[in-house]
């Protein structure tokens, strides 16, 4: 990716130019009403699900840029302070050399507190007129008292606070690196003595008198144990009128919710959780609409005024064959339901139309020509980066092949053949990752575990393919739940599941259980796995229930049993649909 030559850039959000983020971020479906609230919020999702973009977009710097671009007044009701946790400062671990837990926590908290202090000052240093002239001296004196440091009265106070925070943190690191722990303890700062009073001081400025400060920590899974517990303790504060936390964290890290004092914070009470990975029913689902908006916004930015469906047209031969398969399904439905309602016929076509297409294909045929917006939305598995990745490579291929003379704005579509080519390549790439061994790239994954995970996915591919070709009720299901899990099964299976999750080969979602309505986890293999195996990445509502013992056996290379359900059983409506 060089010099923004591609509308579908997907680098880490904080490394993208702010103007690009402001231009391409789609606000509608990204939980703004939860972010811009006084609630503590955990945004949970794997890499590429849009967590960082969401936080950045809601930070004051980016909101100010948006206001400037759109000539709108910047409101100060909710001010987002973006605090990155993926930094060499946060990743320091000298606290492990100390044998006193209290001191470990002091040192860890100090780094986090100074980072927050810096970012608060950094946020306001660019805001002209936040501090009226008659308040400048007062603010300088108050902060000088608070931090026990003489700030010059004639300088930008927020720049001075930034400088102070940096001097403090650098001096602290020197002490720690030299092993001078005693002096370090004395210099350590805390949230309640530094951040809280500063926020309350800022609330005394006229422009910020009703401001609620949102402290937005990104990549909080990179915090060490003591920093996480500090954070949980702050979340547990009773009064959140002046500030709240919005915390982005990877789902697979399974954050702990214990406070420094050993208590815990509770979902729904102390914070709410937003799952950034969207359930994917169809292109009309919220994620489908989001995907469309994201693509179109990015195209517009590069001067390409096209609808997403037009830019990514499907293969016409495929559409024709699919329509023929749907017609066949319609005829079958009319025979099954002679008195059937229109909905029954439509549902039947939805369930079996695409399956009939795949079943009608000759065994010797090439892979289906995967293409079209519908396919792209589905293979993204509800993760934004998975949507942008193939789009990026498709665009790059068209642009590179065109040679000199073609401007980006002149690319008005991606040919279906190139879409199919890139999708298959990206699909193969995931299997190559499995073949080469996840132990090479995933932390705490042994060679043996890598082989087991590979076997598991191989057998899942075979299982879903058998269903696609033979199952009469839910042939296109490509998600599963795990049944019959015992503690012994869990100790074997869950490490493999977690490795697959860390490798972004598997996502976990939550939905109502078939049996008793409670929420249960269900597993969505990354749909990009399926094209190279000739499966339908679109999937359908429904989940296959697989026994834990069968999954463990699959990891050992044994096929997963497929129960073939007859149409009669299916029609009786005994089976569960999501």
């Amino acid at each position, binding site marked *: *990716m*060089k*010099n923004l030559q591609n509308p579908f850039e997907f*680098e*880490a959000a*904080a*490394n993208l130019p702010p103007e690009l983020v402001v231009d391409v971020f789609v606000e509608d479906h990204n939980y703004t009403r939860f972010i811009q609230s006084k609630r503590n919020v955990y945004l949970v999702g794997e*890499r590429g699900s849009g967590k960082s973009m969401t936080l950045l977009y809601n930070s004051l710097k980016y909101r100010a840029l948006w206001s400037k671009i759109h000539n709108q007044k910047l409101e100060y009701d909710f001010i987002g302070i973006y605090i990155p946790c*993926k*930094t*060499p*400062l946060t*990743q*320091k*671990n*000298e606290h*492990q*050399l100390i044998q006193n837990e209290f001191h470990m926590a002091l040192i860890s908290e100090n780094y986090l507190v*100074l*980072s927050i202090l*810096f*970012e608060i000052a*950094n946020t306001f240093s660019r805001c002209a007129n936040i501090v009226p002239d008659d308040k400048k001296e007062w603010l300088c004196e108050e902060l000088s008292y608070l931090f026990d440091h003489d700030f010059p009265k004639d300088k930008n106070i927020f720049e001075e606070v*930034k400088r102070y*925070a*940096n001097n403090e*943190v*650098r001096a602290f*690191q*020197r002490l*720690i*690196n*030299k*092993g001078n722990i005693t002096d370090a303890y004395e210099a350590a700062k805390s949230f309640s003595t530094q951040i809280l009073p500063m926020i309350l001081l800022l609330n005394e400025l006229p422009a910020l008198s009703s401001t609620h400060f949102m402290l937005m920590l990104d990549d909080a899974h990179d915090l060490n144990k003591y920093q996480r517990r500090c954070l949980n303790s702050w979340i547990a504060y009773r009064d959140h009128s002046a500030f709240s936390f919005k915390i982005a964290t990877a789902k697979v890290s399974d954050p702990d919710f214990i406070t420094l004092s050993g208590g815990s914070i509770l979902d729904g009470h102390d914070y709410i959780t937003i799952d950034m990975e969207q359930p994917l029913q169809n292109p009309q689902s919220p994620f489908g609409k989001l995907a469309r908006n994201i693509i179109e916004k990015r195209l517009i930015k590069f001067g390409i005024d096209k609808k997403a469906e037009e830019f990514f047209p499907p293969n016409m031969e495929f559409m024709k064959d699919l329509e023929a398969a749907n017609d066949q399904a319609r005829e079958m439905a009319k025979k099954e339901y002679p008195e059937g309602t229109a909905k029954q016929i439509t549902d039947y076509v939805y369930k079996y139309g695409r399956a009939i297409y795949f079943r009608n294909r000759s065994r010797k045929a090439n892979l289906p020509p995967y293409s079209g917006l519908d396919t792209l939305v589905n293979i993204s598995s509800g993760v934004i980066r998975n949507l942008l990745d193939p789009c990026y490579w498709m665009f790059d291929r068209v642009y590179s092949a065109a040679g000199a003379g073609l401007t980006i704005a002149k690319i008005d579509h991606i040919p279906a053949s190139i879409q199919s080519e890139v999708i298959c390549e990206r699909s193969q790439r995931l299997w190559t990752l499995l073949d*080469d*061994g996840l*132990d*090479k*790239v*995933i*932390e*705490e*994954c*042994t*060679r043996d575990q*890598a082989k087991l995970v590979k076997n598991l996915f191989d057998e899942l591919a075979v299982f879903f393919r058998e269903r696609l070709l033979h199952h009469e009720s839910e042939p296109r299901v490509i998600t599963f739940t795990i049944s019959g899990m015992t503690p012994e099964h869990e100790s074997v299976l869950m490490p493999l599941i977690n490795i697959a999750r860390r490798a972004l080969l598997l996502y976990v979602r939550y939905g109502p259980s078939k049996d008793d309505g409670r929420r249960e986890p269900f597993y969505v293999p990354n749909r990009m796995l399926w094209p190279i195996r000739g499966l339908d990445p679109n999937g359908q509502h429904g989940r296959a229930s697989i026994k834990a013992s069968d999954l463990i056996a699959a990891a050992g290379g044994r096929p997963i049993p497929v129960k073939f359900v007859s149409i009669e059983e299916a029609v009786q409506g005994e089976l569960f649909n999501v």
Partner: protein
Amino acid sequence: MYEKHRMITVASWEQRFLYGTLLTFEKHPSITRLDMFFYREYALWSEDNRAKIAEFCKDRGVYLTTHELSFETPALNWRIIEATVTDSYSHPGYIVDITTMPRDTIWAILHFLEERVDYASYVYYKPETYNKEWLSRDPGRPRLAFRRSGIATLGAPTLLLTTTGFDVERTEQLINYFEPKKIILAIQQGDQFENIKLNLQRHEQIRSIHSDVIILKVDSYSQDHSFSMYETALQEHVAEYNVVLSSLGPKPSSIALFHLTMRHPEMALVYAPSNQFNLDYSQGLGQAYEGTLVFREENKQ
């Protein structure tokens, strides 16, 4: 020149550990003490070689200390290394055999030696051949080296400089971990062991994914292990970035990176561990590379 030398090493099952150690003793008959660390996880594999070295030391009248470390307890390892290197033994010259020494151990030993002596010698033995199938697996989480974690500046973006090996996945793991704004890939020059195909060309692909990547062709086997190249490449970025240094390439590069942090303590060293090594990692004993790391120039004799 010191009359007595103290050697520090990490025991391994590889042939180059055993033959290299014996060769070092031959070249430096002034070695009167050997501190031999070994890792618990490979204790069985290294047992034979350790026994031979112990026998040799006994025959030669070399004072031998052995110390068990573990990949699972980096903080405890640090304390053991500290206790060993900073003990009350009178100040001899030091020779550090880095041949089969994990990089975080190299950096820990050099860290304590920097506090204690004015300079230390080191030696590295290449093997004759490496295993063609695989060398190491099961990457652990990258971690900043204790007390060599730099002096980070709040608000500064990250620059990652890493020497590269044949596993491009490990480089990508580091990039994913730090999400640096700028990346400098230091790639060993030459085509030994299909280096161009397995190292250079694979790492070129990273350029197509990340926006700001510089490729530096280095020679980790040169006298300064390309230290001056690194310093030149970094000097215009040090003020603007938090610099993180990693050694995934030839082991002598770890000396150059440590040297960088001596001159620029704001730079951080990061260790990317592997939890599994191939028993057939290498064969034979190859060329030796020796050098001296000067901690305090004015006192060097």
